[in-house]
């Protein structure tokens, strides 16, 4: 970290300056590369680094800074400052945990050095839970150990409200079932005491048998009803939860989807909801009923004979202990087996998908080797978990049975000495099983509960995230198609604008080509136009009205998009064409398909318009998918049309057909087209050339070519590259 700029008196402890600290950030690596803390401090005029000891190891005036950047390193990064004298000074290293903050800080330094307004936001992020100091799995997220369980439980409980009648009946039925299951040993006890005796009392026997039969019949009916209720509640609550989450996700801002992976979002709809309803419908009754049963039975045992009860319950703590001790490692092992199974499936899938490659390289043996490895891994994991399971289970059984042993020893002696009747002895032994059975599982409940709560939190997080503002519905406005950008600034990350000072007007029916290198801001402009995102500054007007005043549904209803990789939904061709206008008459669908040059290839398919397109349209070729998406846009009949690289992934013949179709589609609509191959934009009314987020040039193809500016240079490069690129070129 030494450089000429380093302050000469590195040993002096930093005095507090009058300058306000604008940026202060702690890193997690010390100067020598081990973990430690150093602090970056930026004021209006200086940058300094202070070690944990208070020693200032770097100090430079902000006026000497030319630019600040973040050099990505393996497992972290380093902030570097380029000085005006051409020196590159490494400032501070940090791990990936802090990378986002330091890149924010670097932008802040640049903004300050240029004398611009400080636009960055260095939010204080929680890495650890405030209560228990555990690290958080997501920054600023919920600590799974310290959730507001009461509050969350209450919120989950709301999902029961529509089914309160069923829920209450379930509770009552379950209670009745439990009581009935306790009644049978009573009958049996009385049978032993009063019937199975030297003086035969057949009438009582028959009476008791009738009671027993009654109880049996009743409890069976109750169990059937119980099961039906559980099925009903489980199904309905699961469906309600999934709908609620999905509906919330649908209306979320796109920024949410930028940050999370599709898989993780889908998991919230499926597995997180499963955890919650599973706990609600199965966990809660399990806890309540078994808890009640155990308390009741223990009370009854003590009431029958306190001494005997105390003796036979001695192994209870041991059983609970074993459960608590082994539950977690056991569940981890089961988890591991399921992971190995997943990996096994993945491998199997992959090798079958790649079977052509395997055969072409004659690598069957190699693949079998890998397969065998995974297979054995799975086998070993399965064997080891089962081995462990049966050992633990055996120990459990031993201690559970010990209860019975004690009961026979102590109880037996009591019966012999006449302190206990045989019937009472029988009842005690029957109830014993009711205690020991569920006891083994109680230690699992806590984990069950925690998981459900964590799932619920994730669900509620989605539901509580701010959704898009949809504006007032019903205020329908027919768009003519004038689009006006005024001084628009936007960044996905607010401190880092991707678009700056964008100003242009597209007249109704004009075709505007957006041109520029990748990353220049073409797609971002489109995203803003569709209002997937809103400008940070400036205005976008459609027909002279700020587009935020147009209801979102209305706006998007009149914008059509044809993408490079069109997304089709699994369904028939006709359904896909009619996606933007459900219930359109079939004639219109055919009309649209004809205009899109799709009619002929559709007719060539055995099922014509009823042919299924497969998942994401996989049964069609790229050009076919493209023409269907054009037909979809034609039928949708938007006033504003967006073509995002619509012709780049098809062969020449198909492209001709698509170009023709597009020619028909853009008639009379305001069109924005992005194309990588600049020659395809020759027909555009005007071209907007973007460079680093700003408009470099605007004009017709001809004007820009004559001007020999940025656009001309782009065309030149492209022509040059087209000549060189070819398979095997240069060998």
């Amino acid at each position, binding site marked *: 970290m030494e*450089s000429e700029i380093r302050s000469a008196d590195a040993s002096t402890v930093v005095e507090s300056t009058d300058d306000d600290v604008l940026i202060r950030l702690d890193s997690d*690596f010390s100067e020598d590369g081990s*973990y430690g803390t150093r602090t970056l401090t930026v004021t209006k005029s200086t940058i300094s680094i202070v070690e944990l000891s208070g020693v200032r190891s770097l100090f430079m005036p902000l006026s000497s800074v030319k630019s600040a950047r973040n050099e990505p390193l393996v497992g972290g990064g380093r902030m570097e400052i380029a000085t005006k004298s051409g020196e*590159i000074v490494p400032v501070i290293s940090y791990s990936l945990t802090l990378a986002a903050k330091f890149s924010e800080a670097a932008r802040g330094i640049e903004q300050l050095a240029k004398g611009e307004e400080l636009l960055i936001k260095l939010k204080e992020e929680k890495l650890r839970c405030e209560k228990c100091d555990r*690290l958080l*799995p997501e920054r600023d997220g919920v600590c*799974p*150990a310290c959730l507001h369980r009461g509050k969350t439980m209450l919120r989950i409980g709301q999902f029961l409200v529509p089914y309160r009648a069923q829920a209450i009946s379930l509770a009552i039925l379950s209670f009745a079932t439990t009581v009935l299951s306790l009644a049978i040993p009573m009958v049996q006890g009385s049978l032993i005491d009063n019937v199975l005796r030297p003086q035969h009392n057949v009438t009582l026997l028959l009476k008791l048998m009738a009671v027993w039969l009654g109880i049996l019949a009743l409890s069976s009916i109750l169990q059937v009803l119980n099961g039906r209720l559980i099925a009903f509640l489980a199904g309905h609550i699961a469906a309600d939860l999934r709908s609620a989450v999905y509906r919330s996700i649908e209306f979320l801002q796109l920024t949410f989807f930028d940050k999370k992976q599709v898989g993780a979002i889908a998991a919230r709809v499926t597995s997180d909801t499963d955890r919650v309803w599973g706990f609600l419908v199965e966990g809660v009754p399990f806890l309540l009923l078994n808890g009640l049963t155990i308390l009741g039975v223990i009370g009854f045992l003590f009431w029958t004979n306190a001494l005997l009860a105390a003796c036979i319950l001695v192994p209870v703590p041991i059983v609970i202990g074993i459960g608590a001790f082994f539950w977690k490692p056991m569940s981890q092992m089961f988890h591991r087996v399921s992971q190995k199974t997943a990996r096994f499936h993945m491998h199997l899938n992959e090798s079958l998908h790649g079977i052509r490659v395997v055969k072409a390289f004659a690598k069957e043996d190699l693949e079998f080797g890998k397969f065998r490895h995974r297979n054995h891994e799975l086998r070993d994991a399965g064997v080891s978990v089962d081995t462990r399971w049966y050992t633990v289970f055996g120990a459990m059984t031993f201690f559970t049975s010990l209860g019975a042993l004690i009961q026979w020893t102590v109880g037996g002696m009591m019966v012999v000495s006449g302190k206990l009747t045989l019937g009472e002895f029988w009842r005690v032994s029957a109830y014993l099983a009711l205690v020991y059975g569920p006891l083994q599982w109680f230690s699992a409940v806590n984990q069950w509960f925690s998981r459900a709560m964590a799932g619920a939190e994730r669900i509620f997080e989605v539901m509580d995230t701010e959704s898009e503002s949809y504006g007032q519905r019903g205020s329908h406005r027919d768009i003519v198609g004038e689009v006006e950008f005024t001084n628009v600034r936007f960044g996905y990350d607010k401190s880092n604008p991707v678009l700056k000072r964008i100003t242009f007007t597209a007249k109704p029916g004009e075709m505007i080509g957006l041109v520029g290198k990748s990353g220049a801001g073409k797609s971002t402009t489109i995203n803003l136009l569709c209002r997937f995102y809103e400008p940070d500054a400036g205005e976008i007007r459609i027909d002279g009205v700020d587009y935020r005043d147009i209801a979102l549904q209305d706006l998007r209803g009149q914008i059509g998009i044809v993408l490079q990789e069109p997304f089709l939904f699994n369904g028939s061709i006709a359904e896909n064409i009619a996606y933007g206008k459900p219930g359109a008459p079939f004639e219109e669908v055919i009309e649209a398909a004809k205009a899109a040059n799709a009619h002929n290839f559709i007719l060539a398919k055995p099922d014509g318009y009823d042919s299924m397109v497969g998942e994401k349209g996989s049964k069609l070729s790229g050009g076919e998918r493209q023409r269907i998406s054009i037909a979809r846009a034609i039928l949708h009949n938007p006033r504003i049309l967006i073509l995002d690289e619509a012709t780049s992934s098809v062969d020449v013949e198909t492209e001709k057909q698509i170009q023709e179709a597009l020619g028909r589609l853009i008639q009379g609509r305001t069109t924005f087209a992005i194309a990588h191959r600049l020659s395809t934009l020759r027909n555009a009314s005007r071209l907007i050339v973007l460079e680093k987020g700003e408009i470099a040039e605007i004009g017709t193809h001809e004007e820009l070519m004559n001007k020999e500016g940025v656009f001309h240079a782009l065309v030149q490069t492209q022509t040059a590259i087209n000549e060189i690129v070819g398979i095997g070129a*240069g060998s």
Partner: protein
Amino acid sequence: MIQKVTSPPSGKALNGMNEMDATEIRLFHFPENRLRMTISDQLSYVTVKPVWAAPLSHPDQFLSLLNGKGEEITTVSEVTSLSSDSERAVREELRRRYLTPAITSVEIARCEFGITYWTVQTDRGRRDFVTQSLQENAQWISERHLLLIDVDGNRFEIPNVADLDVRSREFIERIV
């Protein structure tokens, strides 16, 4: 279509350029924070960035030296073949560029609520971290070589699980 052959980079020439005699290479820091290189005292590079070609499967081998633009100047297949001064300089630079710590012992590894909390000792000091879904984030590079990736993408390497103490091994055995 017949392509015009512009510059025929023959395989030999490439190898000759990219694998030179390691003793001809001199690496040093000047100023303090910039790694420079001279080759045979004829060629000089003012900024050199060393990167491992395959840090996981071939640790300490195949060190690629890049120029300021990120283009390869040469590859050193054995770092030890450099002169001791050069080796020291390049290792210094590598330590600055590779912030992946090697775990020397596992103090705590607890699975709770579907995530795993770790407290480990590494060659860079003690560190706490959290991993989610170990199926993806605990990668076995080889039979004994393990890579853990935390929720932020930080990587923690265990070059050889068998070298750890018994307690650490038990944690790994149980959790991963």
